[in-house]
């Protein structure tokens, strides 16, 4: 589709989406009313700028179902992502949403080179997470064979690779790295494994990491992008040339804005990605601020696809970290630390990659001398922190007690995160 044709389609869908939200979601009704925007006020795509942004806080404030545009009887599936303050971010899908979602994931899969001959093992954790079921239905849609292996039990994962003749892997990059190492150590000849493709996602992956995964597993790795707020994976994905992620522009309208001013940036400039869903029924979102920093490239791709390409995400406008595929905000950790006696308010988060797995160390200062009488009490403090962090984050952490005033103090914005994942060990 040519750019003018595509833009005409986007404009028509945007108008319809604005009216749909106005009529069916009280939250948007109020917002749009206040801003004086309705579908017929949108004459060109750039008029989208008059629509107020939607933030993660808006979605959280409307937990669980106040952002829904349809009655619950029309909703056939619910997903959710790990929550920042205990409450997860919910995504609700109508039957048509599920159908479109699997179409979008099918595009990502096809762009990566997958076809109906392929046997894909999905080694993402299943459950509320959109990644596993998203790829599952998308891959089935292209006719590939899907093995819903879920994560963990590495020996069994390798056994299925060999016995089922698996050709494609869906996993987080860090798990793929680990699986690659295990394949090398498995003692089976290289040709016992038929793997050729990897659709990796849900956390960042550096070039070096990708090369290592490709070398160890003998696969061609592509990256894809999505988030629960936008329905999950399928928003964008790389083609065989891997020069940016093709955006499903007919369903998701992307903008790049200046985080500070909220103004749209010129094509090709780097900024915060804002996305409007053009087709979602169950939970539409208008101008969702992803907080991901990237660039949009409107040059046609060598592969022939005309949809805009987004760069790999280069950063965040907030301090969210992705560890083992789990979104982690320092504020979650802070909430646990603040409620704990004996330790100070300062902390440092150190993220490392050991044996191909991310791990998070939480350093806190021991300020109370009351616990010095026995190791048992200090260890109980450590264990208590570990357990509460685990229930809040859903992640194993290593809690380290350090001496008072030994952590760096900051004037102004604190830099509490030390991410060493890309450093040589």
């Amino acid at each position, binding site marked *: 589709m040519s750019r003018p044709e595509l833009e005409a389609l986007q404009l028509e869908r945007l108008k319809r989406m604005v009216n749909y939200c106005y009529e069916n979601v009280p939250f948007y009704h109020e917002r749009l009313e206040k801003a004086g925007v309705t579908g017929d006020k949108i004459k060109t795509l750039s008029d989208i700028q008059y629509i107020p942004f939607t933030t993660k806080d808006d979605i959280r404030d409307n937990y669980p179902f106040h952002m829904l545009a349809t009655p619950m009887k029309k909703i056939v599936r619910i997903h959710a992502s790990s929550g920042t303050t205990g409450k997860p971010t919910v995504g609700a899908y109508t039957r048509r949403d599920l159908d479109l979602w699997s179409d979008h994931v099918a595009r990502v899969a096809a762009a990566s080179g997958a076809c109906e001959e392929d046997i894909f093992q999905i080694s993402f954790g299943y459950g509320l997470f959109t990644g596993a079921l998203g790829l599952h239905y998308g891959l089935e849609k292209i006719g590939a064979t899907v093995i819903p292996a879920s994560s963990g039990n590495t020996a069994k994962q390798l056994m299925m690779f060999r016995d089922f003749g698996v050709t494609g892997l869906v996993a987080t990059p860090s798990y793929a790295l680990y699986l690659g190492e295990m394949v090398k150590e498995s003692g089976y000849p290289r040709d016992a494994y038929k793997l050729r493709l990897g659709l990796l996602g849900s956390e960042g992956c550096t070039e070096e990491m990708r090369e290592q995964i490709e070398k160890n597993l003998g696969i061609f790795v592509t990256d894809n992008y999505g988030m629960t707020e936008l329905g999950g994976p399928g928003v964008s994905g790389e083609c065989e040339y891997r020069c940016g992620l093709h955006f499903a522009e007919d369903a998701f309208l992307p903008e790049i804005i200046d985080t500070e001013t909220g103004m749209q940036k010129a094509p090709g400039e780097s900024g915060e990605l804002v996305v409007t869903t053009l087709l979602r029924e169950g939970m539409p979102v208008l101008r969702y601020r992803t907080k991901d920093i990237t660039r949009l490239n409107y040059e046609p791709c060598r592969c022939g696809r005309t949809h805009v390409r987004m760069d790999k995400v280069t950063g965040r406008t907030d301090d969210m970290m992705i560890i083992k595929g789990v979104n982690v905000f320092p504020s979650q950790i802070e909430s646990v630390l603040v409620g704990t006696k004996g330790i100070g308010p300062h902390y440092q988060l150190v993220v490392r990659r050991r044996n191909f797995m991310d791990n998070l160390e939480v350093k806190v200062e*021991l*300020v*109370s*001398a*009351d616990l*010095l*009488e*026995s*190791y048992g009490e*200090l*260890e109980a403090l450590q264990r208590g922190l570990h357990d509460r962090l685990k229930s809040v984050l859903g992640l194993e952490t290593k809690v*380290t*007690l*350090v*001496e*008072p*005033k*030994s952590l760096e103090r900051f004037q102004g914005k604190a830099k509490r995160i030390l991410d060493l994942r890309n450093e040589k060990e």
Partner: protein
Amino acid sequence: MQIQQLSVFVENKSGRLAEITEIIGKAGVDIRAISVADTSDFGILRLIVDKPKEAVELLRAAGLTVSLTSVIAIGIDDKPGEFAKAMRVLADGNIGVEYMYAFISCDKGKAYVLLRVLETDKAVECLKQNGVTLLSAEEIYGM
């Protein structure tokens, strides 16, 4: 009969023990007994010094987490079976020992054991009744 002991939280980093003891050493505080044990990340340094109050102030001023607790000191003959006898007294008195450390005197053929128990008064009474020598704070600090 109660002796003041310092407990200092120490991160498991090389050179840290030197740095901490230099602080009190420079101020002329003399160490009588010392014990340190560690887990993988941190340790608790326990010190008996001649001027405990001063030492606590110095270490706190240096930003360390320090507590002062009461321990008791017993003196026993430096002979086989003597330590066991003292422990038997406590065991029969149902007094549990949290931790302890010992040092040998250089002149009198005596050994001294510092004990941390939860019920200090009961332990003192029990040891006294059974003829175990207890040392006063002055005796220990002034050694």
